[in-house]
């Protein structure tokens, strides 16, 4: 499909798996970068952990990251008992952040979470964790009872409420986690592509060159907005994982 002289592939390409050996394409390369970046940030950021005062940019950044996840994500939602999950939540937050931030890095400009493979896996991992925590902490029958029957419900509508709560807890939570991350990144990427293609097209047709700067300004503003959205979506995924783990640990009576 040709849009103002720029070749735009059809939207159904979102669901096509990549080519190359074992399907290794740009998305997989960005995920490899995100993994290696997370490992390197925390390996080199904790080299001098014996010193009393942290020094150097990387060590301060790594310690700020861990402090952020500890105070804003875990202590606000689970409390001190959730500190066992600090390593997993820090790794999750930084992995998602690094794979989102490539959306605005020139040359790459593609958020790897705009394909729903890895968001699905991360959401299923979260689902596994909060169910296993619930079963281990409360026993299987009590966990099922606490997650399907909210307190203070009259007996008459109990069957309906149980079905709704069952679907809400076991189906909607992981599905919404996946769709939230995937659709936010896909929508942001499509907006940036649309305004970039629009600017290029307006510039190419000599008649409309005067309008091109406005479209370019909006592209710059949306790029800044996408930095916020990349960080926010990583934070939301992590804090929702923490909230679900917390609600499995302490069911509200």
């Amino acid at each position, binding site marked *: 499909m040709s849009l103002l002289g720029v070749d735009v592939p059809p939207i*159904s390409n*979102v669901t096509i798996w990549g080519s190359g050996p074992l399907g290794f394409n740009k998305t997989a390369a960005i995920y490899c970068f995100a993994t290696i970046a997370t490992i390197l940030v925390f390996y080199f950021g904790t080299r001098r952990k014996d010193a009393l005062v942290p020094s150097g940019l990387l060590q301060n950044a790594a310690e700020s990251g861990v402090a952020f996840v500890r105070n804003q994500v875990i202590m606000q939602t689970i409390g001190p008992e959730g500190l066992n999950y600090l390593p997993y939540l820090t790794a999750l937050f930084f992995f998602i952040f690094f794979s989102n931030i490539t959306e605005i890095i020139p040359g790459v400009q593609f958020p790897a979470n705009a394909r729903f493979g890895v968001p699905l896996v991360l959401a299923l991992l979260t689902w596994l964790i909060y169910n296993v925590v619930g079963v281990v902490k409360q026993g299987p029958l009590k966990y099922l009872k606490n997650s399907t029957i909210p307190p203070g419900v009259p007996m008459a509508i109990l069957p309906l409420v149980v079905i709704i709560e069952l679907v809400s807890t076991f189906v909607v939570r992981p599905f*919404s986690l996946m769709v939230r991350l*995937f*659709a*936010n990144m896909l*929508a942001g990427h499509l907006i940036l592509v649309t305004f970039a293609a629009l600017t290029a097209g307006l510039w190419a047709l000599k008649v409309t060159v005067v309008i091109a700067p406005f479209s370019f300004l909006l592209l710059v503003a949306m790029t800044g907005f996408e930095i916020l959205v990349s960080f926010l979506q990583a934070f939301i995924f992590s*804090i929702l994982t923490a909230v679900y783990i917390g609600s499995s640990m302490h069911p509200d009576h």
Partner: protein
Amino acid sequence: MAMLHLLLAAAAADPTKGLTAIGRGIVYGGAAIGPGIGIGLVVGNAITAMARQPESAGTVRTTMFLGIAFTEALALFGFVLAFIISG
């Protein structure tokens, strides 16, 4: 009313593409109404809470982002569904 005639003429000329486009527009347009109002309510109440008690601004801000993410997810379901509809 003139728009309706144009829409129906477009749909009748090439039914598949036209109706698919109309369907996609209706799906996302309908899905965006509720969360638009919902996010407005969440942020408005968060602003009121921050104005009444400025010391709790940090906690309120964190909970506000959580509420925004929950309601925005519903609009995004519609967005993804609009793309899944094939034609």
